[in-house]
């Protein structure tokens, strides 16, 4: 009988790779992805041609196809490909879920998940927002019912949720700011963080310009270029590999209802993660209190707060206070985004969150290491609130 618990710790991440994050690059997305891919494959200690599954989280990866990976890596028999574009920013963890299923079912042996974000050199957020034919805008309901009222950018939809959270629970601007400040602190400890060397105080946060109230510039994630990749295989196969494996203990994807239209949800603060997190914890057989650190999809500060609640780290409505007083900083109750996150390391659509979680569980993070970390969570947030979550164990 099928039971998701049977997947617990059956598959693992055995290789990670990440290019430098930059604002501007002369390299193509494919070039960057291949560089990260070769780092991940070498890290795993396998031959490139041993890869027989390629999951492209968003389905195109800056123009590259799974076929490009086969051609570049000498994969003569590519067995499994998949992509999860509808998950938006939750695609990275959903891609991991796809890899888990393909590996655990025995369909293939080594799955590569590569991703390049080209958010600085490629289409910038403001260009995507201004162009109604862009995928972010092309949905008919947005085009016909939101855009005529000047609503067409993700921070606006998400600000609706943040405003509602402030109204219902008294969440404050300073609590949103506490998320941004914590991410920036952590970025100071990561050699590959865009905001390293650029510390930020609460006063800096409060002085930053408004984008869409209650979101300021420093509530919004970065626009950066860079690629990352990870390689997965089965726990059995990992025994013979170079790295100590990082096991996928629990993993799940979920959706708000209705998934596409935020205003007409009975509760606009019920997000995909409310559905997926309990499934992932059940699969892993652990509780939120067991988790040592969390890499939360921090596209915007308020969305990080929502996910901290929905991932079970505090009650609904208590996410604001939870993020204050250093609770989510290294040394705090639950270190969040130990790499600086999308807000202060780089926006690699949470590929950087997956890589950081694996690095933490290898205990190789130096001065930003969460002491003796055994269990970490990675979340993804995308579209209008899709939510994925992975519980990783060393």
């Amino acid at each position, binding site marked *: 009988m099928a039971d998701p618990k049977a997947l617990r710790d059956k598959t693992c991440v055995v290789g990670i790779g990440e290019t430098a994050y930059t604002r501007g690059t002369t390299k193509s997305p494919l070039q960057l992805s291949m560089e990260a891919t070769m780092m991940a494959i070498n890290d795993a200690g396998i031959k490139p041609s041993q890869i027989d599954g390629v999951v492209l989280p968003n389905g195109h990866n800056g123009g590259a196809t799974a076929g490009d990976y086969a051609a570049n890596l000498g994969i003569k028999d590519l067995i499994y490909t998949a992509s999860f574009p509808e998950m938006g920013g939750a695609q990275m963890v959903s891609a991991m879920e796809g890899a888990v299923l393909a590996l655990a079912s025995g369909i293939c042996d080594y799955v590569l998940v590569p991703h390049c974000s080209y958010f600085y050199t490629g289409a910038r957020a403001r260009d995507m*927002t*201004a162009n*109604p034919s862009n995928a972010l805008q092309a949905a*008919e*309901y947005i*085009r*016909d*019912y*939101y*855009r*005529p*009222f*000047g*609503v*067409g*950018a993700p*921070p*606006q939809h998400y*600000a*609706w*949720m*943040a*405003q*509602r959270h402030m*109204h219902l629970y008294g969440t404050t601007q300073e609590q949103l700011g506490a998320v941004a400040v914590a991410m920036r602190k952590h970025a100071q400890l990561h050699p590959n963080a865009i905001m390293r060397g650029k510390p930020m105080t609460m006063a800096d946060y409060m002085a930053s*310009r*408004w*984008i*869409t*109230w*209650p*979101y300021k510039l420093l509530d919004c994630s970065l626009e950066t270029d860079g690629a990352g990749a990870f390689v997965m295989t089965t726990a059995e196969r990992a025994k013979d590999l170079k790295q100590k494996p990082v096991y996928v203990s629990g993993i799940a994807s979920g959706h708000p209802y209705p998934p596409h*239209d935020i*205003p*007409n949800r009975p509760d*606009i603060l019920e997000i995909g993660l409310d559905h997926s997190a309990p499934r992932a914890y059940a699969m892993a057989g652990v509780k939120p209190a067991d988790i040592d650190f969390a890499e939360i999809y921090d596209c915007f500060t308020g969305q990080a707060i929502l996910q901290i609640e929905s991932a079970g780290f505090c009650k609904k409505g208590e996410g604001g206070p939870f993020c204050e007083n250093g609770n989510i900083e290294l040394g705090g109750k639950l270190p969040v985004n130990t790499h600086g996150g999308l807000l202060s390391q780089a926006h690699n659509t949470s590929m950087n969150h997956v890589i950081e979680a694996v690095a933490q569980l290898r205990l190789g993070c130096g001065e930003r290491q969460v002491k003796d970390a055994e269990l970490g969570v990675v979340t993804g947030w995308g579209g209008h609130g899709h939510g994925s979550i992975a519980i990783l164990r060393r």
Partner: protein
Amino acid sequence: MTTTTEHNDYQLPVLQGTAKEFYAYCKAHDLRFQRCAKCKTFRHPPRPLCNQCYSFETEWAPVKGTGKVYCWTVAMAPIGKAWVSYMPYAAVVVELDEGPRVATWVTGIPPDQLKVGMPVKVWYDELTPEVTLAKFKPV
């Protein structure tokens, strides 16, 4: 009634399918929403199938045009050049008394005086000869 003249194509709905019908009613100053003709459940934005009784039969049901502020954001960075001259504007979710929620504007009040639950009623902004937008103002 106010008529707005500053607009461009990025701001306009595409008048085809159900949007053509929705905006035709708006043009007639008659706010209506798609409703299941069988079980009478409202749905917005329009879609083909009723998720309560699975009927494909629909009707355009009139509403009173009154509702309450549900949530909002205040745009202070433009999402396109059409909106620069309006900033800062509040993009508000209004819950109609009959149930559907719409993205819209609440005009006639500074954004910082909006309140959740504030009662509002519809007015019609004749943006172009073809497109009239249903906006709201405090009651």
